[in-house]
Structures are given as C-alpha cells and as structure tokens.
C-alpha cells in the first residue's frame, strides 16, 4: 500500500505520539459510553420510579383525560404499539423474505433484480417523516385514523431492511445444499421452501427482529396516521389509536405529571426494543450458519 512510512523521528517522540493517539481512541470510547449510561440512568431513575410506584396499573390503566393528573397509566399506548408493530410485521416480513428469495434465487444478476436491489437501497434512505406523509396521503385521508395506517407506514420502512437482511442470509446458504436437493429431483420452489429457507431461517429471524425493534420505536411515521386516543382500542382497522412513542413525544413538552408518564413510556419502549434485539442476538449466536 502507498502511504509513506517515515520512521526517522526521535524514538521517544514516536512512542509518545503513539501513546497519545491510543489515549484519544480510548477517550472516544469513553465519550460514547457517557450518553448511553446517562440515558439508561435517567430511564431507570425517572421511568422506573413511576412504573414501580403504580405497578401494574401503569400498563393496565387508561391514559388520564387531563394531563395535569399525576399517576398511571399507559395501557392504551402499549396496546397500540403492539398492534401497529405486529400488523406491520405481518405485512413486511413475508413480502420481504419472498422479495429476497426472488433477488437471490431467481433474479441473481439480471436486470429486474438489479433494479429492485437498487430501489430497495433508495427506499432504506427515505426519511420516516416522508413515509408518514405518504401514508397519510394514500390511506389516512380516505379511511381515517387507525393502527392499520401506522402499520402501513412502518411496513414500508421495514420492507427494504427485511429484504436486505434476508438476501444476505440466503447468500450464506452453501450451493451444495441446493444441488443435493435438485439431484433428488426436487423442483426449484420445493428446494427453496424445504432446504434453502430452513437453512437460512435463524439469520432471517434475527434480521427481522432487529427491523421490528427499529419499527417499534418509530414516531414520525405514526404521527399523521394513528391519531391520539386515550382509551383502549383493540381494533386494528377502526378508530383512532395511540402508541408509546407518540405518547412520549406529546407528553415531553407537557406539564411535569405528563412528563413522568413520558419517562415511564420511554422505559417500557426501550425494554421492549432491547428484548427484541437480545432475542435477535441469541438467534445469530446460537444457530448462525458457518461462513
């Protein structure tokens, strides 16, 4: 490689410079840990306080009609987050995995596959607020607020991520598995469904869980699609709903009582996303395909 290696300076100076730079690297690591630790501490201190003070009411009570009233709960927001994220998963995961199957098993380097791959990259870069506006224009204007509108926006954000992660996993499935299956006379679809996908499954599950964790924490796409209910709404398709992320956003600039609930909701949301991430880690760690 190019890059001149000049070792003529005084050895003590060179050693000092090396130590200084290693010190700066360590400093950078420390700087990264400060906000992480500070956020976690605030969540545990402020969020943990309010959740434990009214446990389990915080998760089962409705959101107070008047935000000035202190105390629980966030039940409707938990339900809303689970409904919107769950519905989005049901839409984005099958489509994304099938899309990846097309890209890797059928399309390969063909023109359509290259186009789709390129457009999936473009789609990953769409800002979430833009996705929110888009769903408002094509869905909410016509059908009103519901968890389903939010799910549509989340699914659009998840789709390219699921496609990318799944294609990467399909690439790791060794070709001799496919060839063995063909040699037994299996058709292509049979091979994909019974040999390729099962082999890639742990990696795909892990990639999907990470996409779900991201989606569960999104706020901007839900802003104009879900509405602002304060009571339980178990229906996916009808009536306004709410979500943890939206409650955090709207309560953050409100009175202290509401801010307390925002911290509780934040702790709940972070625990939910960490749980999903951790499960994903277990999947990649335990059952990963050997490269």
């Amino acid at each position, binding site marked *: 490689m190019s890059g001149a290696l000049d070792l003529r300076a005084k050895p003590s100076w060179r050693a000092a410079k090396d130590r200084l730079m290693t010190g700066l690297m360590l400093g950078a690591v420390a700087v990264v840990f400060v906000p992480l630790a500070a956020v976690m501490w605030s969540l545990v201190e402020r969020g943990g306080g309010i959740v434990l003070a009214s446990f389990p009411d915080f998760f089962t009570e409705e959101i107070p009609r008047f935000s000035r009233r202190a105390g629980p709960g966030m039940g409707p927001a938990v339900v809303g987050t689970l409904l919107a994220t769950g519905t989005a998963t049901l839409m984005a995961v099958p489509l994304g995995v099938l899309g990846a199957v097309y890209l890797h098993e059928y399309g390969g380097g063909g023109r359509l596959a290259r186009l789709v791959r390129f457009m999936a990259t473009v789609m990953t*870069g769409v800002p979430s607020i833009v996705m929110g506006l888009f769903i408002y224009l094509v869905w909410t204007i016509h059908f009103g607020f519901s968890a389903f509108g939010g799910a549509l926006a989340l699914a659009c954000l998840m789709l390219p991520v699921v496609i990318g992660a799944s294609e990467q996993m399909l690439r790791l499935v060794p070709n001799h598995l496919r060839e063995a299956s063909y040699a037994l*006379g299996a058709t292509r679809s049979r091979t994909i469904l019974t040999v390729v996908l099962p082999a890639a499954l742990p990696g795909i599950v892990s990639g999907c869980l990470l996409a779900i964790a991201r989606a569960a924490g999104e706020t901007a796409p839900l802003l104009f699609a879900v509405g602002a209910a304060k009571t339980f709404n178990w229906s996916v398709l009808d009536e306004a709903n709410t979500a943890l992320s939206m409650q955090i956003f709207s309560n953050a600039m409100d009175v202290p009582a509401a801010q307390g609930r925002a911290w509780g909701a934040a702790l709940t949301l972070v625990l939910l996303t960490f749980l999903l991430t951790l499960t994903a880690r277990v999947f990649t760690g335990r059952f990963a395909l050997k490269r």
Partner: protein
Amino acid sequence: MQLLDLRGRSQLADRAFRWIAVGAAGIVLVVLALIAITMTDRARPVIDHMGLEFFTSSRWSVPTNTYGALGFIFGTLYTAAIAIAIAVPISFGVALFVTQAAPRWLKRPLVYTIDLLAVVPSVVFGLWGLLVMAPALGLQGSFATAGIILAIMITPIITSLSREVIETTPATDQEAALALGATRWEMITATVWPHSKGGLVGAVMLGLGRAMGETIAATLVIGNTVHLTLNPFAPGYSMPTVIANEFGEAEPLHRSALIALAVTLFVITIAVNLVATWIVQRSMRRSLGK
C-alpha cells in the same frame, strides 16, 4: 419404493411460486413510484403559487400564504453538519480502538454495547435531550442541542460501518509496517488510512443522510424558530421538524408547502445516500478483489 413424480402439478406450483416472489420484489418498485407520484403531485400547488422563491426565500408566514423553505433547508444542513463534526472523530476513534487496540476479549462486549445505542428509539433521545441534557449543559433548544442529540444517534452507524471498512485492510500490510518497526499509530496512518479512505467517506455520508432525515428527536430540542445564522446556540428549525409540528392542522396550500418540503428532504437524503452507498460498495469491492 416410491417413485419420484416430477411432472404435472408440481411444475405449476413451481411457476406460481416464482411469480409470487417476483410480485413481492416488485412491491418495492410500486411503493417508491407511488411515493414519487403522490408527493410531487401534492407539492405542485405551492410551487405554482411561490415559484422558485419557495427555495430562495426564508419567509414562512402561514396567515399571508407566504412559504419560503430556505430557513428549514439551512437548519437541516446546519444541524446535520454539527452532528457530523461531533460524531466523526468519535466514531473513527472507537472503530480504530475496537479493530486495532482493544484486547480480543473486549471487542465483542464493546461492539454489542455500542450497537445498543443504535436501538434506543429516537424519541427517547429527544425526551432525554429536552429534560436532562439541555438543562444540565445550560442549553436552550438550538442548532447545537439538536446537533449533539443527532450526533449521539448517528455515532453507532458510522462506527459499525467504519469498523467493517477498516477490517478489510490486509493483515499482511499491517504486519509489514509493524515489522519495519512502526508504532501502532504509524502503522495505522501508513496502511489503514490509505486503504480505507473511500469507505470511511461513504460511512460518514450514510450518517449524514440519517441525521438529515431524523425528525422526532430534533423536533423536541431544536427550538422551532427560523433563524438564518451560523450561531450554533440560536434556536433553529429544520425540514422534518416543521412538517411534524404543522402538518396536523394545516390548510390546503400550507399542506402543499409542507409536502414540498418533504419532497425536497427526500431528494436531498436520497442523493446523499446513493452517493454514499456507491462509495462504500466501490471501496469494499476494490479492497476485497485485490
């Protein structure tokens, strides 16, 4: 023994499965086309009304139907620039530490912990920035406050991408430098930097794209006032934040103006992302191909 029957129904199913897969992949194209068509269509009224002044004026007054986006475009670029200025040295430092200096047993826990930062929802960073960090640092809602929060949010992405790029440096180059008597830092400047420059630029640009599109955290800490100033401690406003704040109760022309902002944001972030992806892929391919 049963004979394998390879004719008939299974072939039909085979073809059907293929078409289902094609359809699923095609959804990406359909959604993107729909986004482009509906958004530009809805953005047209305000461009007809304001002309090019939409991009060159910073006067945004709803009562007089005057919509100039310059203040928001500036705010988006400025906060993103602050975020990059803070996040890049830190991310590179962490990536170098993890790949070059950290003892083996420490690598994995370090990577996992930094990745946790990437999973924390942006609204939680916004809440923390508004109620904990800003008061602690004596900051109001401003370009700088938003920049710091955005920096925290993009650091994990830039770190993990640069880590991958740096790891493609051939071990032989590094060992050669060390064998000549170079210190670790001299080895890094002589082999890692020249090798990874392209990929690192791409990693930074992907972080930039993420910072520009981020809405909710910024909305809570940017100050929500249009100011065309380079003073980082002045309150500001950006494209995604004004959309989040005003779209809910907007009149038709106002709405069109906000959608035009979204289209502008969309075009800028896509351009940045594509250039970044291209740079990363090119440098990865070059380094792996050799």
